[in-house]
């Protein structure tokens, strides 16, 4: 399990634009760099990030080799109803992680 930091408001007013910020620990190895032994380090990237709000996709991104390690992704969505926000990262070698936070809308 990779370490993650998610910054999201716990409550919001209906119709309010909220900022969601995520950080995940990941080496984002490009596959182009040689290691100490001169051989290429195998590629190890997060290739896809997505955020679902009560099951609906509200944001997604494809990540590539030029993304720095420990990628930070921040985006906005509109608070419509109380529920859960789930954040998923998928990548090479079967990497998959999902974190959820709950949001209550008044």
């Amino acid at each position, binding site marked *: 399990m990779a*370490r993650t930091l998610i910054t999201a408001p716990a409550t919001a007013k209906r119709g309010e634009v909220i900022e969601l910020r995520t*950080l995940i620990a990941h080496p984002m190895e490009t596959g182009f760099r040689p290691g100490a032994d001169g051989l290429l380090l195998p590629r190890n990237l997060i290739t896809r990030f997505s955020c679902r709000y009560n099951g609906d996709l509200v944001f997604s991104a494809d990540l590539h080799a030029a993304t720095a390690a*420990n990628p930070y992704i921040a985006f906005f969505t509109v608070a419509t109803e109380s529920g859960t926000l789930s954040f998923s990262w998928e990548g090479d070698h079967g990497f998959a992680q999902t974190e959820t936070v709950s949001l209550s809308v008044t």
Partner: protein
Amino acid sequence: MRRLLWLLLSVALHAVAQPARRSGFDDMSPSTQAMQRDDAQNPAMLWAQDGAALWARAPSPSVPACAGCHGEARASMRGVAARYPAYDEALARPIDLATRINRCREMRQGAPRWAPDSQELLSLESHLALQSRGLPVEPPADVRLLPWRERGEALYRARIGQLNLSCAQCHDERAGLRLGGGLIPQGHANGYPLYRLEWQGVGSLLRRIRNCMTGVRAQPLAADSPEFAALATYLAWRDRGMPVESPAVRP
């Protein structure tokens, strides 16, 4: 009496006008500064978060966790990182926070020491350093540290390596100028352990110093060498009064 004299001396030295000290933070790009200011963006917080978990978890069921003896780090560890390196009676030399953690692990928890710059050690160190963030660096007024500090200053001013450069030649005399494309900082150690964009990870002061030493083609110092202890003691003295920034971000 000696202690009092020492205190007076240090106050007097403090008052002597120094060239304006600039933390590495002051010369970073606004976006890197924003990364350090905002905990949600600072990747070092991933390490600090891990460190909080390590603080609460016992290495084996029969021994206490760090929290078992020290309690809540937020209260008990406030200001601690700002006072290291401190003199250790048993080893008869100054030790840094990483060594302190490892000593505690060996003696109180009966657990093996962590390798220098290992993920666990950096995490726990970041968690502890975070509790002192914003407090001034405050090297202990301990007379036993004096000879170490002097030795550290001598090392700081000694030319080393095939390039025959001393720390002082870059970080005192040429600070603010450029080396290649990069700005030469004043070399303050008030943000360690820190997240370096070049490393894409958190690293210790030891790693940074070894980095510089390899750069001037010198033999890098070992983690447990007396030279490193002396140099770290001097650097803490050089930074006294500056706010602890750990876990900082640097380019």
